[in-house]
């Protein structure tokens, strides 16, 4: 026998049109003979309509569009910053590799010979200062050269970032 407790559950599903044909027939048969369930059905239909109407009447505040534009700009700036950071890392790596390649190339050997000559000159001229500089100069010369290469790569990278920021501000 179809009970009111079952009908109560099925009324909610019936309002949403989700009952199977068999369930709908059984429920309708019960509603015909049960005033309480009929009343509940009407009330729940009204409740559903009330919720829909009241919700649909709510309006978004007038500043939502400007808030969305602000949010889009903030997201674009964040993505841009990530892109610039990655570009800077790649550029720095590339310039370091280029500098290292130059160092290993014939041009690098010529430059290294020039540096050795300069080092020799400095060692001779600093010999009068007690010799401590003359002792460290030969061993530190390659380190200084490599450090110079990285510094140049870093300066070029920072310059590119600065130019990009200036261009972004100008546009």
């Amino acid at each position, binding site marked *: 026998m179809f009970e009111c407790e079952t009908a*109560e*559950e099925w009324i*909610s*599903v019936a309002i*949403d049109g*989700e009952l199977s044909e068999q369930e709908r027939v059984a429920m309708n048969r019960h509603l015909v003979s049960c005033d309480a369930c009929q009343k509940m059905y009407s*009330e*729940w239909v009204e*409740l*559903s309509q*009330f*919720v*829909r109407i*009241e*919700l*649909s009447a*709510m*309006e*978004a*505040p007038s500043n*939502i*569009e400007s*808030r*969305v*534009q602000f*949010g*889009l700009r903030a*997201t674009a700036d964040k993505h841009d910053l990530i892109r610039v950071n990655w570009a800077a890392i790649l550029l720095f790596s590339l310039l370091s590799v280029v500098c290292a390649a130059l160092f290993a190339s014939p041009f690098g050997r010529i430059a290294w010979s020039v540096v050795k000559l300069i080092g020799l000159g400095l060692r001779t001229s600093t010999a009068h200062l007690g010799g401590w500089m003359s002792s460290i100069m030969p061993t530190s010369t390659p380190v200084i050269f490599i450090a110079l290469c990285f510094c140049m790569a870093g300066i070029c990278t920072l310059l590119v970032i600065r130019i990009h920021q200036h261009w972004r501000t100008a546009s």
Partner: protein
Amino acid sequence: MEESDKHVIRLAIQGSPDAFTQLVQNYKHYVYQTAVGILADKIEAEDVTQETFVRAYSALSKLRQPETFPTWIATIATRIALDSIRRRKREVPIDSPDEQSVRLEQPVVDEFSKAEGRLDLLSLLRKLSEEERTVMILRELQDRSYADIAHVLDIPVGTVRSRLHSARKHLRQVMNCGEGDKHV
């Protein structure tokens, strides 16, 4: 959906900023209604609405069928609103005094507005649990089927059915109590 709406959506998918601005104008109320219905909080709903459109802008190029835009953006809004609820729960435990003080800061509105004698939906929705409110909004505002709701919320269809039943029963009880008080 009208052909003019589909045209605007297609342009927005292709990257037209003006078309996207038009979409924001056309759908801001719908997204806001979804957010406010799930959260029962107008201020949080504004934040969710903003975030919905910002996320939609990034993901719009992946939308294949313009006619699915309303459902698509409503799904985004629903998920962001649910994330907001989870964040709220992590920040303020359910039974802590802090949550009570946060709730007290909300403007207190009676279920019945005395001037108009009308029911205030938000106050009624606040009486429901978050789960009940969510299925209610997905069904009543977004007109989704039980299967669709189950898919969006990742719950069984039977759970959707029982939550909707529970939500309606709960709302009806609250409204009946309110009407009883009104007549006293």
